[in-house]
């Protein structure tokens, strides 16, 4: 079971986004999640950055300053090897959680 579903979900979203985009800055991550989920999921900036910094400390992501397409300076995050492993574990875990939640919702 997931230790902390909410946080686990946010981490999963960020990790997955980074694995799809290979490298992205915080603003881009928010936009990506929003776009792909058709505005259903909106990540708050107040939660995003603490999560990114925590993940960086755990060694799941690394960061570097670079210029965006529109000429702004930003910190770009990308997955490390440990991050990819983490993502795989989380994805598996999430399937279990989703199935569990689904089962409960369908219980008649």
């Amino acid at each position, binding site marked *: 079971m997931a230790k902390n579903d909410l946080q686990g979900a946010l981490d999963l979203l960020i990790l997955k986004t980074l694995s799809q985009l290979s490298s992205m*800055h915080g*603003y881009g991550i928010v936009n990506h999640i929003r776009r792909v989920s058709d505005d259903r999921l909106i990540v708050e900036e107040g939660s995003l*950055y603490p999560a990114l910094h925590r993940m*960086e400390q755990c060694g799941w992501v690394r960061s570097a300053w670079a210029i965006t397409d*529109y000429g702004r300076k930003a910190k770009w995050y990308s997955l490390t090897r440990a991050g990819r492993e983490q993502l795989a574990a989380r994805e598996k875990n999430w399937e279990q959680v989703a199935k569990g939640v689904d089962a409960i919702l369908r219980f008649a």
Partner: protein
Amino acid sequence: MGLFRRIVTLGRRTRMEREIEAELREHMQMCIDDNVAAGMSRKAAEREARLRFGSPVAARERVSEEDAALGLESVWRDVRMALRGFVKSPGFSIVVVATLALGIGANTAIFELLDAVRLRTLPVSKPDELAELQIVGGNRGFGLNEGMFMNFTIPMWLEVKDHHDPFSGVFAWRANGMEVGKPGESRQVRALEVSGGFFSTLGVTPWQGRLIEPQDEAGCQLTKVVASYGFWKSQMGGVPITANTTIVVEGKSVQVLGATPPSFFGMEVGNRFDLAYPTCTPAKLRRDIFFYSVMGRLKPGWSVKQANDYFNALSPGLFENTAPTGYSADAVKTYTSFRLGAYPAGAGVSHLREAYSSSLNLLLAITGLVLLIACANLANLMLARSSRKQREIAIRMALGATRARLLRQMLVESALLALLGAGLGVVLAQPLSRALVASLSTNGNSIHLTIAADWRVLLFAAGVGVATCILCGTVPAFRSSKTEPVSAMRSGERGLMGNRERFWMQRAMVVTQVAVSMVLLVGALLFVRSYRNLVTLNPGFRESGVVLGYFGFGHMHLKQENIAAFKRTLVEDVQTLPGIENATATNNVPLTGGSWSHTVDVGALNGSSRFTYVSPSYFATLGIPILTGRGFTSQDRSDTPLALIVNQAFIRQFVRSTSPVGQRVHVRPEPDYPERTYEIVGTVPDTKYFDLRGEAPPIAFVPAEQFPVTGQRPGMAMMIAARDTAGVERSVRQMFEQKHPGLNMQFANFEQGIRDNLVGDRLMAMVSGAFGVLAALLVVIGLYGVLSYFLAQRRGEIGIRIALGASRSRVVGESLWDAGKMLGIGLIMGVMLALVAGREASTMVFGLKPWDPATLIGAAALLAVVTVVTSIVPALKAANVNPIETLRSE
């Protein structure tokens, strides 16, 4: 790894913070860019981004908090901020740190003494393995007892020496005095008589030469000694010890084998030894002199409990084999019923421990209470301070600081204060502790304790520091972190809202202070009065203007039957000296801790009575009146009927007849003291015997001339009464040096000796008195502070009321009433606490009940006066408020 990198970059906080800030700023910019691209005006775009993003400061803090290393950094920032705060309000900081330092210092000082006296183990290898053997319950006064800690006769020791399965080694020792130096310029040193296994069993290794070994026990002539490090350094100049090193001991030149290491002070905590010499087994063994203390080192695998069982099982045979002869069958039966027990001895033995343990515990409690009062004061100070800082706190909360963050900062502040206080306290504790030891030392008995801040002391101080930090810091911190920013900012610094409920806590603290200081004052009064009772107590005989002279004449080798006559001539010689009122011989000087008793039968009644053998002049010298019958005269000689003068306690216990004079008293035999029958010729009032506290025991006086010849020893004690005691020693010395060259003479002041036995009581009186005063002082400060603060908070209200026509006296009366209520509740609680605490102290106070009403009333009255005087000043100040000015400033 990331965390490691962060720790390495610790101190480069600003760079990291800037980085976070830049990241967040860029994020916002991108947000604005997109909004503008979507067609918003620049202004609307910025506003929308900011609304979405929230407070940038709070966001940055949250990101930083994820960073463990940065978290450490921010604690450091709190520390710096707290220090800046202290520097900004130096008065506050100095008061707080000084109060804490004194409080913690006093506590630590007492604890250091307790530690040195009771907790620390002997400086020998593996002290936990040492066990002492004792007769369970003591020997109940059987035979002759040479002193404290000595509970083995030589035959008993020899038995244990051969049978000690639980021990890998055993040894016997006793403390003794010795004369060192050439005759005429000799001086008394502290000696240890030790068996051959003493040093090897203890694991003490030589510092110089070698120590005493089993082969040294051969021969009872004193030929070799071992010096302590202190003696070797100070008396022998620290010159390396060789086979030719000798010193003069007891008039003879003896070889010094070696010296012990500096840390080894002997077996008694609070004392130290100068010389050690080997025991020997004399040809003629006394079986009834309790002479040695016996200890052993447990073999691996043996516990003290197992050893105890072993020696308990060994006891019947042991006491059967060593039973003394010459005693009545009853007495021998008592002896053979003794059982040996084993007790942990890793901390050595200590007279101090037995005498002062309960005093030290009580002192620790007293200093603890003083610290509690100080803490309450500090908590009040902090509360007042935090409510002054309320506005600042409100602003910080409004800006997004979390409660946890504010709480941490306030706790850091009080932790720093406690740390500073505890640090200074440990430094202060050393001299305080030394001063206490010095006050317990007397001329005749100096105390040598190693006062050191070992880990136990430091741990204790740290514990006290943490406790004070929690007591004075936490409550105010929690209180102010609960601040509602909006109401606090609206009501300003001294508004009416939100402050009322806070008062109850300050009131509770004042009440606690009054209650605790009531306990301390009652304690102080009890101990001071108890000491006064002891000092002014009439023991039943003359104390002042009496010199004690101890004379030894072993060198004259007098025949047993001539000793009594020689003693008489010594007394007569002293009596003829000018300036001397009277003189008497006695075998026991009262109130010096000695005791001499025999078992008596009077008709059908029997029991133990003290026996004192005295010159006829004894009662005149000490001013004891003869109540009935006659005193002794020079006609009471060894060849006349045996005469006895008894005190009232003796009559109460043994004489059923209405006229004691003429009654016969039978004394049971003991070795050297044959069976005898005396006739009571006179009676005297009760006099104190062993110490001032004890009731007078039954005492029987016998003329010195009738002392059994077989028991005579070449030494005597003389009590010399003179108006000018200073000159006595010189004139007696002069006379006897001419008349009896080589006579060993020592002098002491009787009254001084009695006072010296009261140093423990004096210490309690002094320290508890000082702390009682300190407690009252702290209450004054605390109360004044709290009242001033209350009234300052209510200045607006008072202003309005005066403007509306309230009289000033009413305002004063009201605030006095307020103080009176707190005082009343505090006093009631204090009296109850004092009654509970008094039970603990009941054995320590003399001539008073712990619930002594005069003491309780006195302490309460003192506190009441102090409180009223303290409250009048702020009350008057409040009443003199100018209503216009106050209302305008509102």
